[in-house]
C-alpha cells in the first residue's frame, strides 16, 4: 500500500516545478501588461543576485525560445526571422526571440515584457550578438560582464593565485558597475542588506542543486536528467535568489532522499545508465527521451544541467559577510565551471564513469549551438581512447525541426543499444 508520504513526495518536484514555471510566466505577462520593468538575462551567469536586489523581474530569452520548440511552434518564429534576413545557419534561439519581439512579445505561454536592461556574460559569444540586437531594437543599457574562463585543460586557479585574483578583481569591478547601472535604470538605491538576503536564498538553491545531482548516483537513478532535470533546471534559473526557489530545492532534496532511501527510481526499469552531453532536442523532446527509455536507458546525468545552470551545480555558497566580493568570486568560479562543462567536460565525465556506474555516453551536438557542440567529436575521441565506455554521437538541433531526422536518429539509437546488449552479454559469458 502506498503511504500518504509516498503520495506527497514522489513526483512533487515535477508538479511544483511546473506550477512555479506557470506562475513565473504569469508574472511576466502581468509585467508586460502593466508596462513594468524587466531585465533580459541568460542562463550562464544571469546575475539574478543583483537584479533581484533591485526587484527586477528577469526574462530568460533562451527559455522563451526553447518553449516555442517544445510547444512545436518554433518553425513559425524561425521562418519570420529568416524572412527578415537571419541565416538558417545561426542559433535558433536568437531567431525565435527576435521574431517573438517583432510580434510585440507574443509567446505561447503569455506575454513577454520589453527589456529595461540586458545583462549578459561572455560565456557564450552568441549572447553578445543577441544582446546587440536588443540594443538596436530597444536602445537599452546592455551590460556585458566578462568572466574569464579556464585558460587550458586542468588549468583552473583559485583564490590566492595571482591569476585568479586578477580575474576576481575584474569581475568585482564589473559587478559594481552593474549595480550603478541598475540604480540608474530603476531609480532605486542599492541595498546591500537586501543583496545579502538574496545571496542567502541563492545559497539554498546552489546547495540543493548540487545535492540533487549527486543523489542521482543512486541505483536506480532517482530522476531522468534529461526530462525531470530540465524542470528542476528551470526553477534553478528562474527563481535564483528567491525564497521560493530556495524552498523548492529544499523540498526537492527531501523528495530525492526519500526516493533513494526506498529504492524508488524513474518510471523506466533501469537497464542502462547514460550520461547526456549537449543540449536537448526540444523539437521532439518527449520522443527523443522515449527512444532511450524504450530500451531501458535512463539519463542519470546531463552536462546541460551543469552549464545551463551557470555552474550552480558546483554548489558555491556566498559569504554574506562580504557580499560583493564573494558574489564576484562565486560568479567567476561558477560561470567558469559552466564553460568547463562545455569545453573540458571529458575530464569530469572520465571521473564519473565508475562512480556513477555509467554504461554509455550520448553526445548530442546541435546546429544551433557551436559553443556546446564544436568540441564534442574531439572530446568523444579522447574519451574513447582513454576509457572503455561506449558512446553515441547524434546531431540534430534544439529548435529547428528541419535538421531533426527522427527515423535516422532511431536507427542509430537502436543500433547503439544492440551494441550495449551484446557487450553486456559478452561480459557475462566472460
Amino acid at each position, binding site marked *: 500500500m502506498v503511504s500518504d508520504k509516498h503520495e506527497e513526495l514522489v513526483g512533487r518536484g515535477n508538479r511544483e516545478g511546473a506550477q512555479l514555471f506557470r506562475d513565473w510566466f504569469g508574472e511576466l505577462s502581468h509585467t508586460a501588461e502593466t508596462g513594468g520593468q524587466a531585465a533580459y538575462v541568460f542562463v550562464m551567469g544571469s546575475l539574478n543576485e543583483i537584479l533581484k536586489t533591485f526587484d527586477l523581474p528577469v526574462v530568460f530569452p533562451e527559455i522563451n525560445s526553447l518553449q516555442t520548440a517544445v510547444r512545436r511552434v518554433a518553425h513559425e518564429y524561425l521562418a519570420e526571422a529568416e524572412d*527578415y*534576413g*537571419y*541565416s538558417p*545557419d*545561426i*542559433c535558433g534561439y*536568437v531567431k525565435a526571440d527576435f521574431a517573438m519581439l517583432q510580434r510585440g512579445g507574443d509567446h505561447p505561454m503569455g506575454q513577454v515584457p520589453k527589456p529595461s536592461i540586458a545583462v549578459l556574460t*561572455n560565456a*557564450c*559569444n*552568441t549572447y*553578445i*550578438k543577441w544582446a*546587440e*540586437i536588443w*540594443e*538596436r531594437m530597444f536602445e537599452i543599457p*546592455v*551590460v*556585458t*560582464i*566578462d568572466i*574569464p*574562463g*579556464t*585558460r*587550458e*585543460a586542468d*588549468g583552473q586557479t583559485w583564490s590566492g593565485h595571482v*591569476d585568479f585574483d*586578477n*580575474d576576481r*578583481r*575584474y569581475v568585482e*569591478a*564589473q559587478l559594481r*558597475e552593474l549595480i550603478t547601472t541598475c540604480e540608474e535604470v530603476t531609480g532605486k538605491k542599492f541595498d546591500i542588506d537586501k543583496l545579502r538576503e538574496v545571496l542567502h536564498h541563492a545559497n539554498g538553491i546552489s546547495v540543493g542543486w548540487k545535492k540533487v545531482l549527486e543523489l542521482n548516483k543512486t541505483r536506480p537513478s532517482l530522476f531522468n536528467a534529461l526530462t525531470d532535470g530540465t524542470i528542476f533546471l528551470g526553477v534553478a534559473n528562474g527563481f535564483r535568489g528567491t525564497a521560493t526557489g530556495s524552498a523548492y530545492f529544499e523540498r526537492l532534496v527531501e523528495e530525492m532522499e526519500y526516493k533513494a532511501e526506498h529504492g524508488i527510481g524513474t518510471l523506466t526499469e533501469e537497464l542502462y545508465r547514460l550520461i547526456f552531453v549537449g543540449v536537448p532536442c526540444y523539437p521532439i523532446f518527449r520522443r527523443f527521451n522515449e527512444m532511450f527509455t524504450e530500451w531501458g536507458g535512463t539519463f542519470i546525468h546531463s552536462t546541460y544541467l551543469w552549464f545551463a545552470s551557470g555552474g550552480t551545480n558546483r554548489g558555491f555558497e556566498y559569504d554574506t559577510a562580504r557580499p560583493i566580493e564573494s558574489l564576484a568570486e562565486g560568479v567567476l568560479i561558477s560561470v567558469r565551471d559552466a564553460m568547463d562543462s*562545455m*569545453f*573540458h567536460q*571529458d575530464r569530469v565525465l572520465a571521473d564519473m564513469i565508475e562512480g556513477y556506474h555509467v554504461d554509455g555516453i550520448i553526445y548530442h*551536438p546541435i*546546429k544551433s*549551438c*557551436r*559553443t556546446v*557542440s*564544436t*568540441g*564534442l*567529436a*574531439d*572530446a568523444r*575521441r*579522447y574519451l574513447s581512447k582513454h576509457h572503455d565506455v561506449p558512446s553515441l*554521437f547524434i*546531431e540534430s538541433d534544439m529548435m529547428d525541426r528541419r535538421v531533426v531526422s527522427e527515423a535516422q536518429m532511431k536507427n542509430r539509437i537502436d543500433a547503439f543499444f544492440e551494441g550495449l546488449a551484446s557487450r553486456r552479454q559478452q561480459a557475462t559469458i566472460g
Partner: protein
Amino acid sequence: MNNPVFHEWRDKTLDDALTECRDLVEDPGFPTVKRWREQGGKVAGHFQVYFPEELAHAAGMLPVKMRGAPTEPTHADSHFGSYLCSIIKTSLEVAVSGKLELDLFVSHPICDAARNLAAIWGRNFDYPCQILYLPQNPNSAHSVTYLRDEYNRMKRTIEGVVGGEVTDDALRASVAVFNENRRLMRELYDIKRETPWLVSAEDAYALVSIGGMIPREEHNELLSTLLPQIKNRSGRQEDRIRIVFEGAFCEQPPLDLVRMLGRSCYVVDDDFLIGMRWILEDVPIEGDPVFNLAESYIERSSYSPVQHDLRKRKEDMLLNRIKVARAEAVIVAAAKMCEPGLEEQVAYTHTLDETNFPYFVSEFEENMTSFEHLELQVETFLENLLFA
C-alpha cells in the same frame, strides 16, 4: 635568426616579387615556418583575430597567424561535427597533419566555435594550448588593467616555453618593430584607397597576409622595398566602382576570389586580416609596454563583429569605413557557418537599406574553387551601378 625565412622575393622585379608573395600565401606547407624551425626557432600559433604578437616576438618566437589554409581537412574532419565554418577545421588540419609545427597555441573566445579550439588542441598536442581572454566588456573602467594582467599571464606562459625572461626593454624593441609594421600596412592601405589602380586587390592582400608567417623585421623590409616601387608604377585610373569588402575578419576568402573582385572593381578598403591591422596608431614605447599594448587594444583599435564595444556599433563603423574610403558600394560577405558574421550581415544590410547605399550580399568559404557564378553576379551588380 640569422637567415631570412622568405628570400624568394629578393632581387626580383616588382611583379615577380609580388608573384612570390602570392605563392607563399597559397602554399599550405608553411615553408617559411619550417625554415624558422630548422634554424632552431620556436613558433607561437595564434588563431584569429587579434593577438599581441609583440609578446611572442620579444621572447624570440615566431608568431604565426592561424587563419586556416586552402586545404582539405582530411585529418581534422573526424575531430569535428557538422555545421562548422571551414577555418576551424583547416586550422587544426595543418597542425595534425604536421604541416605546421608549433610550440604554443593560443586561441581567443571570438566566437562559439573558436573558443573550443584551445581545449581541442590540448587533447591532441603536448605543448601549451591556451585561451587568451580578450575583454568583451571594454566599456568597463577596469578592462585595461585586467587586460594588462592577462597579457602578463600570457607573457609568463611564453617565458615558460622559451625558458627565459621577456624583459621590458625587449618588449619595447618589439613594439617598435610592430609599430613600423603597422605604419607600413597603413601606407599600403593608403595606396589602395587613394590610387587603387597601382596595386591589385590580390597583391595588397598577399602583402599583408605574409606578415603572419614571416618575422616582422623581414615583413618590414619587404614592404619598405616594394611599396615605393608600387607607388612609382605608371598605372592608369580606370572607370571602376570603388568598393569596400566587409566580412573577412576571421576566415579568409581564397585568393582567387580576391583576384576575381580585383578584376571587376577597386577594393579600396576591407577587413581582410583585420587583426594584423587592429591597432590603428603607434603603441607608446615609453612606460609599461604590457600596459601600453593592453590600452592600445581597447583605445586605439579597429572593429569587427567578434569584438563587442558599446562605443563601436558595427553598422556605424562600416558606414564610416565607407565614407573614409569614398566607396560607392559595399560587398557584405560572411564565411559559411560563421555565426557572428552572418548575424552582423543583417545589421549591416538593414542599415545600408536605410541609408540607400548599394550593397551586394554573399557567403564564401576558404576552400571554394568555383567563382564563375559569383563573378557573374558581382559584375551584374557593378554594371547596374556603372550604367544606372
